[in-house]
């Protein structure tokens, strides 16, 4: 099997995403209508049953997450459109092709948890997406599709850490985007201290399909434990660097060779980094893994953002990881010690290795630091920052050692 299945992008380039009418013509807002006819409990049950898991980092069952929201006078639905993982642009694509599905999905969530206000937090790198979404929301309101649900778009300003849900909330509140400690989780005390559901674009955009076609239908697509589709973005040394929507039981090697058309310039494959910059580097021997959450976890990787960065045989892994370590140094918010100091020292040591000034002890130091960051950092950024380092030392250790002083 090497076919795309398009749920989210089914009408890509056939409708104007800013126009609610266009979307309605192809069956849009039916899911919301159906949701409105259900009790909150049944609606959440339906979403649970679909098996939809958050398309962000944690892969938590969406319906389950909603069911934890306690009663409160004011609640919020927040969409995380801060996809900051380098190599990732699938949320942009979903918006550009099907913004109304996101809007409908958020409104469905609003019905489920009884919230009247939604926020979309869009990364500052996408001002045109902000414009598009604002138009799309206005259009949806104009045709009366949203009822009493309203959505405001807020723009980030260049901070990868704001992809972390609590940092994102801080940023919407107008603060420095520093993550909060959990608990309390946003579901209990989120935006302005009230219960808040935060999901990402892809998660929300699946909801209209689930409601319209039924939970069972969605649950039957892809991997049973992580059903549905996944939008992937291919970058790096592949012939076909573009986006695809595939079922979640799709095999990684098919992504590279079938959809990606194989390695560019007839070169040999060396590695693929999946899930963006915080993802693990996967060597050839693990390419036969399906992309679903659990299968990837089993090989120490994560599908995460769906970014797939392919590297050919000529690529200098240590150089790339050095560059990645710079990214994390730049993006650490600076709140907690392990991350603020750790990402800084990781970059220092990586540069030392990359420039041939390091010894074996530096690699040990790096692994020790990675272990502490992973265990002790406050949020996902600091915990995941060392993953590219540890996964490449594991699978491509020889490339590090080649650069050490004694071998230089």
């Amino acid at each position, binding site marked *: 099997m090497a076919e795309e299945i398009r749920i989210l992008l089914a009408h890509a380039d056939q409708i104007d995403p800013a126009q609610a009418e266009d979307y309605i013509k192809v069956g849009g807002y039916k899911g919301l209508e159906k949701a409105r006819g259900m009790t909150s409990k049944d609606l959440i049950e339906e979403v649970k049953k679909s098996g939809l898991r958050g398309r962000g980092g944690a892969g938590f069952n969406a319906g389950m997450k909603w069911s934890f929201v306690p009663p409160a006078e004011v609640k919020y639905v927040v969409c995380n459109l801060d996809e900051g993982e380098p190599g990732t642009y699938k949320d942009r694509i979903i918006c550009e092709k099907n913004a109304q599905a996101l809007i409908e999905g958020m409104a469905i969530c609003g019905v489920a948890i009884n919230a009247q206000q939604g926020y979309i937090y869009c990364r500052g790198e996408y001002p045109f997406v902000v414009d598009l979404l604002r138009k799309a929301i206005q259009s949806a309101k104009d045709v009366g599709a949203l009822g009493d649900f309203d959505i405001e778009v807020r723009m980030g300003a260049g901070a990868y850490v704001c992809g972390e849900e609590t940092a994102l909330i801080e940023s919407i509140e107008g603060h420095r985007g520093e993550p909060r400690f959990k608990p309390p989780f946003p579901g209990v005390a989120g935006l302005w201290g009230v219960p808040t559901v935060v999901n990402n674009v892809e998660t929300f955009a699946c909801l209209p399909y689930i409601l319209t076609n039924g939970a069972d239908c969605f649950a039957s697509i892809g991997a049973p434990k992580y059903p549905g589709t996944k939008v992937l973005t291919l970058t790096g040394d592949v012939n076909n660097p573009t986006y695809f929507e595939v079922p979640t039981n799709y095999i990684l090697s098919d992504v590279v060779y079938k959809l990606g058309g194989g390695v560019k310039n007839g070169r040999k494959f060396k590695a693929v980094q999946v899930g963006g910059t915080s993802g693990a580097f996967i060597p050839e021997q693990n390419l036969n893994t399906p992309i679903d959450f659990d299968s990837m976890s089993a090989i120490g990787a994560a599908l995460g953002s769906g970014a797939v960065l392919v590297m050919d045989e000529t690529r200098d892994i240590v150089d790339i990881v050095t560059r990645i370590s710079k990214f994390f140094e*730049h993006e650490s918010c*600076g709140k907690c*010690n392990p991350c603020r100091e750790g990402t800084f020292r990781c970059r*220092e040591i990586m540069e030392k290795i990359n420039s041939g000034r390091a010894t074996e002890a530096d690699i040990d130091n790096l692994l020790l630091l990675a272990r502490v960051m992973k265990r002790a950092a406050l949020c996902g950024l600091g915990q995941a920052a060392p993953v590219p380092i540890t996964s490449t030392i594991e699978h491509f250790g020889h490339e590090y050692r080649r650069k050490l002083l004694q071998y230089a």
Partner: protein
Amino acid sequence: MIKLTIDGKEIEVARGTMLLDACRQAGADIPTLCYDPDLRLAGSCRMCVVDVKGRPALVASCVAPAENGMVVQTESDDVVESRKIILELLAARHKFECPTCEKDGECKLQDYMYRYGVKESRYDGEGPHFGMEDPNPFIERDYDKCIMCTRCVRACDGITGAQAINVKDRGHHAKIAAPFDGKLADSTCVFCGQCIMVCPVGALSSKVAAGQGKPAQNKKVLTTCTYCGTGCTLELNVNNDRVVGVTSNRDENWSPVNKGALCVKGRFGWDFIHSPDRLTTPMIRENGGLRPASWDEALDFAAGKIKEIKEKYGPDSLAMFSSARVTNEENYLAQKLMRAVIGTNNVDHCARL
């Protein structure tokens, strides 16, 4: 009540108790840098991490509620390793000038490095890199010693409410700053020194007290402030029979009004005690000027004059201004002197001024 096991010891705590408090209740000594019971929680220094069975990552105990059935290890290998590395990371950015540091002996970084045997940092790259000079006469700011616990920021906001400082920039460049990274005098800072009070290291210290005595050498005498009527409790730091600084006690049971908080006068306005202008001997007016006199001479002179005037013009020709700045006991004696000894009710003080 909930039950949990800490270092093999089963304890019971009220629901809602933080894990840190539970651990302390169980007798575990949990190190903390950013934690301060009077301030908004940060959960950022990660020194208080503990091992909770079944959790993939370590848990920062200051921000984690204790849960029923938790099994906690406070000094597991993982915990100790993490704390040591965190200390090494902090040590790598901290300017060590312990011999001349005002906090030497009362520095948490020092204490924990000693406790965990961290003699040096393995991170030999870039060192302290901020520096800072602030021309104000009260607070020394040396961000090359700062460990970014943000207690000063939280105290400035939560205790004083001045909100003069915050974190600027991010990541390793993050630094505590007044607006536009400017001088405190140009900010809303009121120089209360609460930031010095909560700073766990020597990044913030008193310029007025600088160089006069290290914490361990100073005796601390709890007393009541001599300025306004609020009645704040403060600690006079005494070294060699001299007041060399003012600190404050944050225990409500000893500092009931202010709980450690002071204002600029209370914290920095004590050095008049040793002003060279202090009067140290009685004086008598002679030929239009005042000359030193012995106590006996001066007292006899004063008593003689008072008697003379009382006899000549009657007791109501004398009056006394007692003082709102002396003690109750002294005020009592002052009015007793006027009423019982001189025989007049002409006694007042500056309550109206």
